[in-house]
């Protein structure tokens, strides 16, 4: 009897989780598009990801952390000119206003991929998980590519 109850409980719990996940998947707050991770020299200790992020929700969304199983650390950086030099500043969070789209592109914002666990070449998959202040998680997968 107990076994049946436990099985039933697990079944209901998994169905609930599946529904919750489906709900999240169908309506994520942020939409990630045009993700580009250029191949870098195999000895490079950093790589970069460029992408567009659209806030599909009606409230502002803040990215608080990004993780990737392929890298030790992932950070958001902003490139800017300062005293005639290209300068890079780490951003603790990145906020996107409701219904706004931002572009992370060369010379501006970028996702910095620090210390690859192993060298990545064209065609290798990189998984990035974006954590939002709301607790929402968005995971995207993309392949390293050669960019000219």
């Amino acid at each position: 009897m107990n076994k049946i109850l436990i099985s039933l409980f697990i079944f209901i719990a998994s169905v609930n989780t599946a529904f919750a996940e489906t709900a999240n998947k169908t309506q994520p707050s942020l939409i990630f598009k045009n993700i580009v991770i250029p191949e870098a020299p195999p000895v490079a200790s950093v790589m970069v990801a460029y992408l567009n992020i659209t806030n599909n929700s009606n409230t502002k969304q803040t990215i608080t952390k990004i993780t990737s199983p392929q890298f030790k650390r992932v950070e958001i950086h902003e490139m800017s000119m300062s005293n005639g030099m290209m300068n890079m500043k780490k951003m603790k969070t990145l906020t996107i206003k409701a219904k706004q789209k931002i572009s992370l592109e060369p010379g501006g914002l970028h996702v910095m991929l620090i210390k690859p666990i192993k060298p990545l070449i064209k065609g290798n998959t990189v998984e990035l998980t974006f954590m939002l202040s709301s607790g929402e998680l968005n995971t995207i997968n993309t392949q390293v590519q050669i960019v000219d």
Partner: protein
Amino acid sequence: MSETNQKSNSLLIIVVAAISIGVGIWVSQTVFKTPAAVPKNLEATLLDKSKPLTAFNLIDHNNDTFNLESLKGKWSFLFFGFTHCPDVCPLALKVMQNVWKSPELKSLTETNLKMIFVSVDPDRDKPKLLKSYVQYYNPKFIGVTGKSNEIDKLTNQIGILYGFDEPDENGDYNVMHSGQIILIDPKGNMRAVFSPPLSPKSITRDFIAIQKFVEDNS
């Protein structure tokens, strides 16, 4: 006076006239040589007056000496950065790779061109690492670094700026640096500066014009 004589006289006049014109052109081009016009519509900044570089003493990615003499004999493109750079340096090296590959420069690349990446971060960028890094972009590219005071001897006279941020909690640090590519002529004179946004097409086009201008005036 025969018809044949008249014909040979006319021929003589034509020959003399042609020789005179030829000599005239030659004299005007050599004795009264006018300087070639400065190329127009350049995106690059061409220096009004070429700037002869002074001595510096660095090492290349094979641990061999790299000094002022190493810049002589060929045209050199120089970019200053560091291999831990995520964005600016890979983009600049990609641009240099595309300039090198451009069909218009095919005859030059093997014999008359050098692409040089100078790391201003010698603590992390050892020659072995630099070699793998630059040669990913092209096996002919040259990585250069050295002691900070020697790097400064080069950057100061070229007008390249760089500086180090404080290390973060992981000990990683960023290097701020200029984003220009510098063009040095085969006599070791600084000639032009290519500023971001860098485009392989405009750099190639401008380089051909600058090279012609310099050679016509030398």
